[in-house]
Each structure stands twice: as C-alpha cells, then as structure tokens.
C-alpha cells in the first residue's frame, strides 16, 4: 500500500486531538476531494463509511476519547485510488478477535460492526501488529 511509484494528485498529513468534530471536518475535506475526482456516489459512500468507522475506532476505542491523545492521519488520492493511514495513541486491539456481527449469535449485539464495515467497504485493509495503526485502500470501482 502507498507505493512510492504511484502518482497521487492530492495528499494530506495531519495530527489532531481526539475529537470527533475535528474528525468530521477532516472527513468532509477528504470527501470534497473524492467528489472533485468524479468518483461515483457508491464509491463516495464506501470511502465515507470506512473513514467514519476508522476515525470513531481511533478516537473512541483507541484513544478512549482522551483529548490529550492524538490521531495521526494521512491520505493519498488519485483518480483511481484512495489510501488512508490512521494511527491512534492507544494500546491497540486485535481486529481478528472481534466476533463476526453477521453470525446469527451476534446479529443483535449492539457493537462490533465498525471493523466489519471497514473491511467490507474497502479494497484492501491491514492493521499493524499491535492494532493501533490502520491502513486501507479503496479502488474506484464505478
């Protein structure tokens, strides 16, 4: 992911305190670039969903909404692909330990859908070993 050889038309690197309002402003900024790139409504939605769930995870679950902890964010975008890297300052988690929310046993459980939605809506996703760094790419499909 994030190959040096790839030509990106837009990029952003920033870090910010654990505040969903700041995160939502950042999502708006990224989505504006996605729109400018002429991505389909369906692809836009997929990027928006993955960003929303990833930043909620980083801020609320990773950093425990502690404003002293920061989120480190990188985005690379071109007409065919978007790359996102999100790092929180929490102790991490094991994404494979989260029960499958589509399992009939867990279908009515109120939590655990965020990671599943990220995996479903993007093209490639990976966490680092400790689980506090998420990278994903979404290819333009439509």
């Amino acid at each position, binding site marked *: 992911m994030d190959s040096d050889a790839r030509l990106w038309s837009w990029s952003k690197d920033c870090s910010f305190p654990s505040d969903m309002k700041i995160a939502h402003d950042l999502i708006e900024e990224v989505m504006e670039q996605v729109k400018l790139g002429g991505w389909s409504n369906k692809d836009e939605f997929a990027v928006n*969903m993955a960003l*929303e769930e990833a930043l*909620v995870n980083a801020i609320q679950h990773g950093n425990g909404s502690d404003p002293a902890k920061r989120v480190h964010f990188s985005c690379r975008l071109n007409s065919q692909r978007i790359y996102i890297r999100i790092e929180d300052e929490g102790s991490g988690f094991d994404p494979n330990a989260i029960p499958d929310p589509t399992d009939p046993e867990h*279908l009515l459980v109120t939590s655990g*859908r965020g990671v*599943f*939605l990220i995996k479903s809506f993007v093209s490639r996703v990976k966490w680092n070993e400790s689980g506090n760094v998420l990278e994903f790419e979404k290819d333009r499909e439509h």
Partner: protein
Amino acid sequence: MSQQRIDVKKVADITIATSRDMKLNDDLVIQEWGDQLLALLDDHACRKLLVNFERVLFMSSSALRALITLNKKAKEVKATLLLCGIDDNIMEAFRITRLDNVFQIKKNEDEGVRSFTVVTDK
C-alpha cells in the same frame, strides 16, 4: 435542550417517524434521534411504528446500534417496527451486516403503511 430529530405523524393507528437529519453519524444527533424514537414506544397508542429514512444519505454503525436498541424495545412492548425510504448505499450496509434479515424494510412510506395490514413480526 435536545433538538427535534424526527417528524412524527399518525396515519390511522400507524405512527410514522421521519428522520430529519441527512447524516446519522454524530453521537449527539444519534443519541437524540434514538431517544426520541424510543420515547414513541412509551406511548401505549404506538404499537405500529414506521421509521422513514427518505432524507437520510449517510448512517454510521452507531446509528445501526440505536436501531437495534429500538428493535429490542419494540419487541418488549409488542410493537411492530418497520423501516422505509432507505437509500441504496445505506441499504448495502444493512445487507453487509445482515440487518436486512432483522428489520422489516419497505421501499417507501406508502408501501410501509400498506404492509402494516399484512405484516407479521420477524
């Protein structure tokens, strides 16, 4: 003072709650929206509830969580809950999470109202 997140109307014995917000992803908005929907079921006269999403273009997993809580309460008070007007992209999130098997979902408000006469609890 919380903001009004739903518009409520009655069609015969059916309560129709239309979500006002285009995005259901902010914690405060979802909390208020969910609380206002739950409060409808506190009224014994509300045992047929149709939640209309025709204005909603984005919904996070937090909003899905609020809907699961609403579904649980509907079952507790023996109310029938239907959803309608769900955008195609949001519907994909329902399908992916298999919540389309949990909720009874109708295309639009008219279809939702009509179906109350034949619907049975899932």
